[in-house]
C-alpha cells in the first residue's frame, strides 16, 4: 500500500461540494475549447501544405524560353543589353500575372482540403457514435444481470429516482477484479456494468457510492462527451497513426512520392513545411492524448462530487475507493480501447506511478487524490476507516486472484482497428422481410435449407463479405441468409439472445421503445445530410476551379 498515506489524506480543509462541481464543469469547458483550438493549426497547416504542393505541381509559371524567343522575334535589331532588359521586364510581368492565379488556386485547394478534413472528422465522430453499446459490452465481456443481482438492480433504480433519470440496465462482468463502468449515449439507453469482484468486495453503502458515481456519469452525459473527444483525438492522431503503420509495414508510399518537378521548390517547401510537419506528427498527437486524459480526469472528479451529493454519504465512496485501491483495479484482460470508461483505472496500477508520464496520460486521477477530495466535503471519515478499508481490499486481492474469464481475448489493441474491425461476437438483428427468410446450409441459394425464420424473429448476424451473411438463429442453428434480407439492428447482447429468460426481458424493453422501421435515427439522417452538403460543396468548388480555366 505504498503511496496512500491516510495521515496526509486526513489533513484537508473543507470544500463545498457545489463549488467543486462547478469548478470541474468549468475545467471541462476549458479543456474542450483547447481541444477544438488545437484542431485549427492542424487543419490550416495540412491544407496549406496541400495547396503548396498542388501549386508547385500544377501551377502556371512563365516560360523563360518562350519569352526569350518572342523578344528576339520582336526586336531583331536591338542589342543584347536591350534584349536582356526586355526579357526581364516581360518575365516579371508574366510572373506577377500568373502568381495571382496561383494564389487563387492555392486558396481553393486549401478550402477544399479543409472541408475534406472536417468531413473526415465528422465521419470519425459518426463511426464512433454508431459503434453500439452492445459492442462495448461484448468487448468487456458483460452479461445481463439476473435474479442474483436483484438487490443491486433495486439500488440502481433508487439512485435513478434520486438523479431524476430513467433507470439504466445493469450488466455484470465475470471477473473478480473490482471495477465498474457506465455506457450509453443518452440516459434513456444507458447501461451500468459492474464486475463480480465489485459485488463481492463492497458492502451496501460502498456499492451505493460506486453506483452513484456511475449514475452521475450518465447524468452528466459523459459518454457523449467522450465520443466527441475520442473523435477529435483520433482525428488529430490520424496522420501520426497512419505514418507509424506505414513505417511498420515498410511501405513508405506517401513519403517516397516524388513528382517530376519535385526538386524545383524543394528547399523552400521543406523550410515552410517544417513547422506543419512538427505540429502534425509530433505536437498534435501528444497534445490530443494529454487533453483527453485531462478531460477524463476532471469528469472523474466531477462524478465523485456528484455521487457525494446524490448519496449524501461520501464515506461510502471513500471506503469503496480505498478497498479498490487495496485490491488493485488492474484487469489483465482490460481492453485499452475502453479503459477510460471504468470506475478505477483498469490499465495502470490502482495507485499513482509518480512519474510524469503516468500522471499526464492517466485517464483516472490517482485514488488517494480522489479520496482526499471526497474528504474535503466534510464527511468526517476517520483515518482508521480508510486504513481498514484498504486492509480489507488487500486481503480480498490476495485471496481472490483475478481468474481468467471467458472474454474475447484477441481484440485488437490498436485505436484504428477498434473502429474498422467488425464485432467478433456478431450483432443481434430483427428480420424485417414480410415473408421471413430461409436459412441455407452454405453460402449458396441451391444448398440445403436448414431453417425458416419468420418476420420479426431475432438472429445473430455476422458480417461476411459476399452475397450471404452467416447467422445463428435463436435455436442455435448456424446457416446463411441472402444479403438482400432486410434486417433491423436491435440493442441486445448475443448472450441475451441465447438465454430465453433474458431474451424475454430484453424483448419487453424493446417493445417499450418506439423504433423506426429503418432503424435510422433522425440524428444520423441530419449528420448524413450534413456530409452530403459538405462533399457537394467541395466538388462544386473543385468544378468551378477547373471549369473556369
Amino acid at each position, binding site marked *: 500500500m505504498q503511496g496512500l498515506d491516510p495521515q496526509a489524506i486526513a489533513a484537508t480543509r473543507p470544500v463545498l461540494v457545489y463549488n467543486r462541481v462547478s469548478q470541474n464543469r468549468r475545467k471541462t469547458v476549458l479543456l474542450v475549447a483547447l481541444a477544438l483550438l488545437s484542431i485549427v493549426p492542424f487543419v490550416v497547416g495540412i491544407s496549406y501544405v496541400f495547396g503548396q504542393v498542388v501549386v508547385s505541381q500544377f501551377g502556371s509559371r512563365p516560360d523563360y524560353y518562350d519569352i526569350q524567343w518572342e523578344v528576339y522575334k520582336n526586336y531583331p535589331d536591338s542589342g543584347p543589353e536591350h534584349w536582356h532588359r526586355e526579357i526581364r521586364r516581360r518575365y516579371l510581368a508574366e510572373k506577377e500575372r500568373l502568381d495571382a492565379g496561383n494564389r487563387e488556386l492555392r486558396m481553393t485547394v486549401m478550402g477544399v482540403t479543409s472541408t475534406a478534413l472536417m468531413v473526415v472528422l465528422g465521419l470519425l465522430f459518426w463511426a464512433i457514435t454508431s459503434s453500439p453499446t452492445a459492442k462495448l459490452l461484448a468487448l468487456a465481456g458483460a452479461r445481463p444481470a439476473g435474479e442474483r443481482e436483484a438487490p443491486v438492480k433495486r439500488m440502481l433504480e433508487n439512485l435513478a*429516482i434520486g438523479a431524476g433519470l430513467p433507470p439504466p440496465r445493469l450488466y455484470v462482468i465475470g471477473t473478480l477484479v473490482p471495477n465498474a463502468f457506465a455506457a450509453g449515449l443518452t440516459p434513456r439507453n444507458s447501461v451500468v456494468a459492474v464486475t463480480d469482484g465489485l459485488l463481492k468486495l463492497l458492502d451496501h453503502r460502498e456499492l451505493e457510492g460506486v453506483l452513484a458515481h456511475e449514475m452521475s456519469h450518465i447524468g452528466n452525459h459523459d459518454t457523449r462527451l467522450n465520443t466527441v473527444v475520442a473523435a477529435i483525438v483520433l482525428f488529430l492522431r490520424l496522420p501520426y497513426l497512419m505514418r507509424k503503420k506505414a513505417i511498420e509495414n515498410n511501405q513508405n508510399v506517401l513519403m517516397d512520392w516524388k513528382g517530376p518537378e519535385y526538386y524545383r521548390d524543394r528547399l523552400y517547401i521543406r523550410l515552410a513545411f517544417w513547422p506543419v510537419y512538427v505540429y502534425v506528427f509530433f505536437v498534435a498527437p501528444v497534445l490530443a492524448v494529454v487533453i483527453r486524459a485531462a478531460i477524463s480526469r476532471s469528469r472523474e472528479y466531477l462524478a465523485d462530487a456528484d455521487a457525494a451529493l446524490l448519496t449524501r454519504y461520501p464515506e461510502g465512496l471513500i471506503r469503496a475507493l480505498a478497498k479498490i485501491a487495496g485490491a488493485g483495479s488492474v484487469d489483465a484482460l482490460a481492453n485499452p480501447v475502453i479503459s477510460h470508461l471504468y470506475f478505477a483505472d483498469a490499465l495502470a496500477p490502482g495507485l499513482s506511478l509518480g512519474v510524469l508520464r503516468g500522471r499526464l496520460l492517466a485517464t483516472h486521477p490517482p485514488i488517494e487524490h480522489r479520496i482526499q477530495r471526497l474528504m474535503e466535503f466534510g464527511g468526517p471519515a476517520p483515518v482508521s476507516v480508510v486504513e481498514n478499508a484498504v486492509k480489507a481490499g488487500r486481503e480480498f486481492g490476495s485471496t481472490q486472484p483475478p481468474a481468467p474469464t471467458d472474454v474475447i481475448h484477441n481484440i485488437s489493441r490498436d485505436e484504428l482497428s477498434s473502429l474498422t474491425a467488425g464485432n467478433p461476437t456478431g450483432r443481434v438483428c430483427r428480420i424485417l422481410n414480410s415473408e421471413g427468410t430461409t436459412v441455407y446450409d452454405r453460402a449458396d441459394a441451391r444448398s440445403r435449407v436448414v431453417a425458416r425464420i419468420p418476420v420479426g424473429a431475432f438472429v445473430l448476424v455476422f458480417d461476411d463479405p459476399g452475397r450471404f451473411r452467416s447467422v445463428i438463429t435463436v435455436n442455435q442453428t448456424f446457416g446463411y441468409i441472402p444479403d438482400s434480407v432486410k434486417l433491423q439492428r436491435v440493442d441486445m447482447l448475443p448472450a441475451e439472445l441465447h438465454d430465453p429468460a433474458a431474451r424475454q426481458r430484453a424483448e419487453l424493453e424493446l417493445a417499450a421503445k418506439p423504433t423506426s422501421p429503418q432503424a435510422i435515427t433522425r440524428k444520423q439522417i441530419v449528420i448524413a445530410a450534413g456530409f452530403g452538403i459538405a462533399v457537394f460543396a467541395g466538388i462544386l468548388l473543385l468544378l468551378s476551379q477547373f471549369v473556369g480555366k
Partner: protein
Amino acid sequence: MISFVVLIPIALLVFCAFFTISLYNRLVTSRNRTREAWSGIDVQLKRRSSLIPNLVETVRGYATHEHEVFAEVTRARGALATAAGPLAAAAADQTLTAALGRLMAVAENYPQLQAVQSFVQLQTELADTEEKVAYARQFYNVNAMDYNTRIQTFPGNQLASWFRFEPFTYFAAEESATRDVQVSFARA
C-alpha cells in the same frame, strides 16, 4: 451615421427581449421540473402507505394485544394521506416513520413473526420504499433549490416578482416535528 444611431438601440431591444423570453422559459421549465419531482415523492409516499395495511394485518395476527401501536400507525397513515404541501407531508412522514419504528420494535418481541415469509418480504419492501422516498426527496430538494436560486438572484428575481413565481418549500421535517417524534419514541 443615422442608421447606426437607430440600429444599435433596436438591436439592444431585440437582444433584451430574447433574453427575457429565454429567462422566463427557463424559470417555467425549472418550476415544472420541481413540480414533477414533487409528484415523484407523492408516488413513493403512496406506495409506502399501500404497504402498511398488509403489514399491520400480518403483525396483528401474532401480536393481538398491541392495540395502541396499531392505532397510532393507522392514524399516522391517515394524516399522511390528507397532508397537503411539503412541510405538512414531511411532518406526517416523520410521524409515520416513528410509528412504524415502534411497530417493528413490537414485532421483534414475536420471534415466530420472523419466520413468516410474507412479513419478511413486506419488511424488505418497506425498507426499499423508504430508501426510494429518501432519494425522491433528495431529487425534489435539489430541483427546488435550483429553482429558488433562480428566482431569488438577479435578473430572475425581477421577472419572478412580475409573474409571481413563488419559491418552493423544501421537503424537510420541522425542528418541532422531529422533537415531538423523539419524545413519543422515548415514551414507548
